[in-house]
Each structure stands twice: as structure tokens, then as C-alpha cells.
């Protein structure tokens, strides 16, 4: 039985994990950088260990200090949260070699899903539809051109070992392909020590749908239905919801069963997400798998009642899932707004400084996940997400209305933030209809900014 968990993260997700641990009667160890001495996660955990300087690479990515802290505080397990070390298979293996439980999937799965070509092959074998593209690594420029011709431009050329926006090129035609191919191949070799490239058809306008998966170490895998995360700017999600409003029951069933198929094919044994792109004809294609808890997990918790973080800890602790598939029902609709310290009127420039006043929204069907407090000093070293506000309602429109009034109640003074931007969005007719795709946010931001310069 896990008795003590070191949480290798900060901010609201560290607070979220501490709350789950308290429910489970598990002791917590927070880690923090010299910039985070007064952070909320440090105050709420049972113990806290400083692991390095403000810069993440010296602290929240400092594997040696983190493992030492876990061992010396006698933690049994490490929860990596998201970001930082969450999808780092070497870290997971190292933790295990130290006798610690890594709260996440088997590192083999992190590796498999981290290599995008291998992931595609595995999914293809499992019978999950893939984004049209090259199946294995592109063998040569000429072969690549042929495949591109077949699937049709525009395409995305990607390094198999890439990630985080690196090693990616959008290619509009043959000329561009001939130019980009050798350059990216060299880049991939330099950055990732692996020059394998592959390509996928580019969907400029699609729904980004993801299915939440829970697995345990006894071969049980269930899904908690899907989330619609199509409201994105530069691949940064800003508003998420569950379920996807546009799917009918037949489509939902097919999608979730394919996600289950994908998870089972790789023997998935933890919490994870299968991401799909869905085109205008409701055809969906496997995009990638996230082998960690996600920022937007609360919307799924709101519609199902399941505590995903608790299930994640249970399964790492070799316990069976608390649920079977037919226990999972969609009870309503949920939205999440990520409240971020950035200014939409100035190209989402991040803002830092002291939060001189913070007032959280409250009442029925509102959940706030945040590490903010009045007088908190927002640091330039980390992510600028300050809070997640989650609303629930019996219908999507109820959830939207509830979110509007929650945003009206929220006060954050001292830094620029996107409260107003989120509020405006909740009145946009296309958003309210739920018929927005991944290109919507950009167009909407442009529209809002153009309006700023006119009176009407």
C-alpha cells in the first residue's frame, strides 16, 4: 500500500494531487524551487523539499534531487502530474530502479507511444483509424513525394521522435516538400538523434476529440467518454468541454470503443487519453496518446463523478479500478476555462506580478482548481495558468450559463488575464452552438482584436 507520495510538480495540479492523497489517507511530499517557497502546494503538503533554483531544469526537472528527496523522505511513490517529467520514460525507470512506484503507465508504453511512428503502427494493428499518411518511416525523398501525392497536400512532415512543437513542418506542395525533407531529416538527427520522418494529412479545420481511459494492472480498461478540446490557440487548449456536443450516441459509442481498443492493444495500465481528429463528416483518426493525467481531466470528473487522480493512484498501487464500464454514465455537461495570465489584446503576452486581489467564484455546480491566493507572486519561470474554473449543468447550455456567471464573480487583480476573453467567447454564437473546430479560436481572436479598434 502506498503510504506517502512525492509530487514532482507545482501549481494547481500539485494541489489537485494533494487533495486526492488526503482523501486516500496518503501522506504528501511537495517539491519546490527557490522561487516557489510561498507556493500553495508547499503549504498544503505534509512535507516539502526544496530541490533547486527557479529555472525548471534546475528544480522541477532535476531528476537527482527529486529522487533523493523521495528516498530521504521515505516516499513510496512519485506522482509526476503533467508536463515536466510526466512522459519521461527514463525518469519512470530510474524511479522504479530506486524502488519507487511511478504513478503512470509502464515505461514501455510511454516509450512506445512517445515514438509517433511506432504508435501509428501499433494503432494500425489494433484496427484504429489513423490520419492518412506514411505508415512507416519515409524511406526516401522520392517515396515521400509519392505518398504525399497520394494523400494530397497540405501535409505535415514530422520527426518520429519529435514532440512539443519541435521537428514539425507544414508542407503545402511538392516544391516545399523537396526543400523541407532533407532539412528536417538533419534537424531530427541533431535534436533527437533519430532521423526517421513520417507524414500525416493536415486537417486545417477539425474537431479535437479525446477519450479518457482508465486502466489497472489486472487488464481492466474502461473509458470515461470523450472531451471536446477544439478551442485551441497554437495547440494551447483554452476552453474544454465534455462530452462532445455534436456526437450522436452511435458515433460516441464507435469512438469510445476504438479508444478502448487502442488502450487495450498496448496493455494500458493507468490513466491516459487517446486523442482523435474528427473531420466534417464525423470520420475520426487517431492522433496520439497522452500517457498522463491531463489539465482538462476535471470536465470528465464532473460528468461522470469519477475521481480520475484517485483511480490513477489506486492502479499504480496495484489495486483494481473502482469502476466497471457499465458504472460510467454521462450525468450532464461540463466546461472548463483555463484562466491564464496573458493579454489577448497583445498577442497573449504573458503577464507576471503580484496578485493583489483574488476572489474565486462559488456555489452549486462550480469547481475551482487553482494554486492562487491574494498576494501570491506570479513568477515568470513557469506556466502562466492561474486557475481552472469548471462548470456543470444538466445540459450544455446550462453549463455555459453557469460558467458565464462564475466568470462574472471571479476577480483577479494585479496581472493581465483572459477572464474577459473567456467571457466573450461564451457569447459567441458559433461557440454556443458547439460547432467550432481547431481553427476557430484564431479567427475569433482576430475578430475580437479587429473590433477593439472600431467603435461598433
Amino acid at each position, binding site marked *: 500500500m502506498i503510504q506517502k507520495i512525492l509530487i514532482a510538480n507545482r501549481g494547481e495540479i500539485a494541489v489537485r494531487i494533494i487533495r486526492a492523497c488526503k482523501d486516500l489517507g496518503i501522506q504528501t511530499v511537495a517539491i519546490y524551487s527557490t522561487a516557489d517557497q510561498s507556493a500553495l502546494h508547499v503549504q498544503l503538503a505534509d512535507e516539502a523539499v526544496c530541490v533547486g533554483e527557479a529555472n525548471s531544469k534546475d528544480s522541477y526537472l532535476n531528476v*537527482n*534531487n527529486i529522487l*533523493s528527496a523521495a528516498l530521504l523522505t521515505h516516499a513510496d511513490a512519485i506522482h509526476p502530474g503533467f508536463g515536466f517529467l510526466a512522459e519521461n520514460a527514463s525518469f519512470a525507470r530510474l524511479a522504479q530502479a530506486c524502488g519507487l512506484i511511478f504513478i503512470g503507465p509502464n515505461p514501455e508504453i510511454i516509450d512506445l507511444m512517445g515514438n509517433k511512428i511506432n504508435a501509428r503502427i501499433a494503432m494500425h494493428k489494433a484496427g484504429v483509424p489513423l490520419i492518412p499518411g506514411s505508415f512507416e518511416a519515409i524511406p526516401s525523398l522520392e517515396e515521400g513525394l509519392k505518398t504525399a501525392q497520394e494523400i494530397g497536400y497540405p501535409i505535415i512532415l514530422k520527426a518520429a521522435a519529435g514532440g512539443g512543437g519541435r521537428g514539425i513542418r507544414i508542407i503545402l506542395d511538392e516544391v516545399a516538400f523537396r526543400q523541407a525533407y532533407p532539412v528536417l531529416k538533419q534537424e531530427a538527427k541533431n535534436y533527437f538523434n533519430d532521423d526517421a520522418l513520417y507524414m500525416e494529412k493536415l486537417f486545417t479545420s477539425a474537431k479535437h476529440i479525446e477519450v479518457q481511459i482508465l486502466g489497472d494492472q489486472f487488464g481492466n480498461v474502461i473509458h470515461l467518454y470523450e472531451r471536446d478540446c477544439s478551442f485551441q490557440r497554437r495547440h494551447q487548449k483554452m476552453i474544454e468541454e465534455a462530452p462532445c456536443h455534436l456526437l450522436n450516441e452511435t458515433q460516441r459509442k464507435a469512438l469510445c470503443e476504438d479508444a478502448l481498443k487502442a488502450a487495450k492493444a498496448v496493455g494500458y495500465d493507468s490513466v491516459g487519453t487517446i486523442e482523435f481528429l474528427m473531420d466534417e463528416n464525423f470520420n475520426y483518426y487517431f492522433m496520439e496518446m497522452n500517457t498522463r493525467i491531463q489539465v482538462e481531466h476535471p470536465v470528465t470528473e464532473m460528468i461522470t463523478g469519477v475521481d480520475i487522480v484517485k483511480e490513477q493512484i489506486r492502479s499504480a498501487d496495484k489495486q483494481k479500478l473502482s469502476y466497471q464500464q457499465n458504472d460510467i454514465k454521462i450525468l450532464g455537461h461540463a466546461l472548463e476555462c483555463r484562466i491564464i495570465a496573458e493579454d489577448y489584446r497583445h498577442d497573449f503576452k504573458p503577464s507576471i506580478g503580484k496578485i493583489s486581489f483574488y476572489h474565486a467564484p462559488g456555489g452549486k455546480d462550480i469547481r475551482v482548481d487553482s494554486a492562487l491566493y491574494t498576494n501570491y507572486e506570479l513568477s515568470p519561470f513557469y506556466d502562466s495558468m492561474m486557475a481552472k474554473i469548471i462548470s456543470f449543468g444538466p445540459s450544455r447550455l446550462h453549463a455555459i450559463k453557469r460558467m458565464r456567471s462564475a466568470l462574472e464573480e471571479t476577480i483577479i487583480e494585479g496581472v493581465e488575464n483572459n477572464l474577459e476573453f473567456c467571457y466573450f467567447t461564451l457569447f459567441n454564437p458559433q461557440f454556443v452552438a458547439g460547432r467550432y473546430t481547431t481553427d476557430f479560436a484564431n479567427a475569433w481572436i482576430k475578430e475580437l482584436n479587429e473590433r477593439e479598434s472600431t467603435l461598433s
Partner: protein
Amino acid sequence: MDTKQLETILALFEKSTVSEMELESETFKLKLKRNTEIHEVPVKPTIAQAPQPTTVVDTAHWVKAPLVGTYYHSANPDAKPYVEVGQSVKEGQVICLIEAMKVMNEIKADRSGVVQEIKAINGKMVEYNQALVRIGDAP
């Protein structure tokens, strides 16, 4: 003014929501500010001022833990501690060990001087930046 009075004023300021306060009387001038850096205000010469005590500039400082690990004051359980309070040390001299991931890391004095205080406890964990040993000019 006496420090008792200052203490009282500071306590009042602390309890209040006032963010800045300036107070001037015949004998003193005081400026208080919260959460931002203080701007130096020239002290008005008071007639027949008492001689200020000469403040000793103490260059003593703490050697801090550069990593998380277990602190050991000696090379092995049977050995004498590397340093003890009152002992002179030379810059570069090993003053303790920090064991992390089964590796012993030698921590060295970064200045010459005298060991004034040892805060870390033999065999216990130290976190990053934790004060270990203070070295100064005098004990």
C-alpha cells in the same frame, strides 16, 4: 526615539491595511512601506546627535547545500568531524559530505575563516539551499 516606541509603531503598521506611512516628529523621521523596496530617505541632522555605534561589517555567510541528500559531518562513522565550531578553515577545504543517489559529494569551504555555527544534523536530509555551516572572521 527609543526602539520600544519603534516596535509599537511597527506593530500598529503591521496590523493596519496601510501600505505606506510617513511619520515625522521633532526627534525622528520614519517611513514605512509594505511589499515594495524602500526608498532611502536622508535622515535629517538632529542637533547634538548621539554618536552612532560603528557597525561591524560581518562577511560571515552560510555554506549552503548545492543538492538534496544526506548530510554527514565526517568521512565515516568512526572518523572525526571535518570541522567543528571555532575551527579555522581554508577556502577549498572539505567541510562535510552530502550523499545523494549512493554518491558521496564533498562540500568545500568557499572562503577561509572560522566556523561559527553548524546547522545541519549528521545523518539527516538536507534540502537544496539549506544552510549547513557558517564561516566568518571570528567565532
